[in-house]
């Protein structure tokens, strides 16, 4: 691992934008904030690979593009495979013809990563290509109109897991993608939130210092799919962290570390009540769902805490 210089001040990032405004993302899009921060921190020269997603659609309305870096989109489920192809090509072309090597970041949404793209991701991680995969997780298929995914939390209302008279929202817990990624024994994996920008940008730097695959799981608040006022996009992301719903941690060469301890968590209700996709969990008739979700959040935190402690 190369030495990583820590980013301490916003001012170090000013002027480093790799996207232009004029993109068509919704006002207050949490994904765009996170993606922008990641690009600000990224080492260069950089190539971006994008799975089909909100980010892809809103950023490249032909004949315009928001991207100031080389960018490629092929399909929904193959961003990790595409990144593999670029990495392999640059490796051999630099060896044979002196082409410049690049850093590579692949962005996929939760649908493109948890569900339809997980095979390609697993393959690329196993093969050990040098690239950073970022799953920006807005916890449903927002691009197609808010359908449930493997990332949707228990009880959440989506258009394919509506709150009905018989069945209330999604009936399954969120898939633990980080554990799947970590099982590939890649050098670096971390969770992040745009609300905690310093934590995020330094995780990007750390991820890119490794000669192998790295992974960042980014919470991406979605004003349309979570139903909150666009101005509260970062506030909601922060609440996710402060309620321990979205633990900020990293797994570096197998060593777990909580990067943002939350010694006095806010009640989970604080996070739930500000979003209409989840606020029905606070109704008395849905108490069992709320308890199950709380148990999931608590058990995950306790486990991460133990793992962090044993590696400390």
């Amino acid at each position, binding site marked *: 691992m190369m030495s990583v210089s820590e980013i301490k001040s916003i001012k170090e990032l000013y002027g480093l934008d790799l996207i232009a405004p004029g993109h068509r993302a919704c006002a207050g899009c949490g994904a765009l904030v996170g993606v922008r921060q990641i690009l600000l921190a990224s080492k260069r020269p950089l190539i971006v690979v994008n799975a089909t997603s909100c980010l892809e659609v809103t950023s490249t309305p032909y004949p315009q593009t928001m991207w*100031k870096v080389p960018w*490629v989109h092929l*399909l929904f489920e193959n961003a990790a*495979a*595409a990144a593999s192809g670029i990495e392999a090509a640059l490796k051999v072309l630099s060896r044979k013809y002196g082409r410049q090597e690049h850093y590579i970041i692949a962005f996929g949404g939760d649908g493109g990563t948890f569900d339809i793209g997980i095979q*390609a991701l697993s393959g690329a991680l196993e*093969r050990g290509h040098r690239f950073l995969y970022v799953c920006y997780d807005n916890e449903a298929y927002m691009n197609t109109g808010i359908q449930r995914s493997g990332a949707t939390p228990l009880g959440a209302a989506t258009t394919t897991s509506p709150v009905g008279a018989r069945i209330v929202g999604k009936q399954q817990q969120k898939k633990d993608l980080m554990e799947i990624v970590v099982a590939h024994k890649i050098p670096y994996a971390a969770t992040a939130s745009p609300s905690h920008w310093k934590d995020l940008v330094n995780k990007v730097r750390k991820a890119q210092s490794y000669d192998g695959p790295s992974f960042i799981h980014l919470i991406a608040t979605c004003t349309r799919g979570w139903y909150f006022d666009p101005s509260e996009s970062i506030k909601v992301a922060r609440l996710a962290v402060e309620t321990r719903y979205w633990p900020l941690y990293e797994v570096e060469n197998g060593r777990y570390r909580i990067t943002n301890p939350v010694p006095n968590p806010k009640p989970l209700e604080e996070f739930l009540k500000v979003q209409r996709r989840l606020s029905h969990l606070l109704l008395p008739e849905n108490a069992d769902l709320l308890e199950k979700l709380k148990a999931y959040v608590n058990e995950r935190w306790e486990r991460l805490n133990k793992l962090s402690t044993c590696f400390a």
Partner: protein
Amino acid sequence: MSLLQPKTLKPMSTSEAIAYAVKQANVDVIAAYPITPQTIIVERLSEYVNNGELDAEYVAVESEHSAMSACVAASLTGARVFTSTASQGLALMHEVLYVASGLRCPIVMAIANRALSAPINIHCDHSDVMGSRDAGWVHIFVENAQQAYDRIFQAFRLAEDNDILLPVGVNLDGFFLSHAVEGVATISDSEAALFLPPRKAKYYIDSSMPMTFGAFALPDWYFEIKYQVVEAMEKVPKKLAEVEEAYYKMTGRMYGHVGAYRTEDADVCLICAGSAAATAKFSVARMREKGIKAGLLSIRLFRPFPVESILPHVKDAKALIVMDRAMSPGAPSAPIGQDIKTMLYDAGLNIPVANFVYGLGGRDISAAEFESITTKVIEDLKAGRPIERGVKYWGVRI
């Protein structure tokens, strides 16, 4: 010494011949997934890479979908790219095939044609490629190991031409060709390098020119961008002829868009593609000895369908027999039958066409069977009986 005299012949299976040609083509990236019957191709390539005989990156992907995805991305990065697949593998690649042509990636892929499930079957037919024939790929059929070897060089030179920039499928019949060993005349590494210098991509993924590849195109632009594939496809027949001419000067070998045998005065012309052409040729020769005026036209360039090259050979025939090694359930004709009939209609010709589906799942077809099919049509002609139109399924037990 005549150019036509091969210096030495090396015994190789068609798969090995293809792998050897790919090595000599100095390919940069291979991303592939094993599937019978193409596996020998990627096994040999892996050996070349691991032995240091070929300086390339071999990406051992976890599926054919990822194989083609990695190929597309590598190709957009400016690399010379090869992959190989068959059957279910091609089917799994299906959606990526359209991306490869839509983004104008000059990938070369060997397809060891094999039947599609269900029922599962590992043997030859053309169902795989026929299911992908509208994906915007150039498709070439080969009839033996020599053609396969030669076509690999031609395919790269054609695909990477900046006027073309289309992916090319080199189709070889699974097992009948992939596993058959023949003598193959090879070119030297220096001849290969001269015929096929390193790829010079005009646009590629690089920070020196930060471009966006694969943007979101709405109804105001989608049609025009997609139409590029049609325009490029239209240039292929002439460009392939030029490529073949250059290859001919070096090797004395040329195949053309079609392979014609005794078509000039044929009453009935057999039309087929792939390894069956050799059997059909033998059959036609035998029929000619008996005074039966049969001819053979094998489709070597399948996409774009080389109408201009086919018509002169068939326009004077009294009937055509189109042999398809794939079916198109519910359609009025099988795949090549559809193309031939469309071609005749556009040319204002009303030549009767007998369309047979044969050999599915690797069922062999013999010279005697070709003769039997042809004789029946000729007898009908003589007797003034109408040729049975529609699709018939040769040899199926019903």
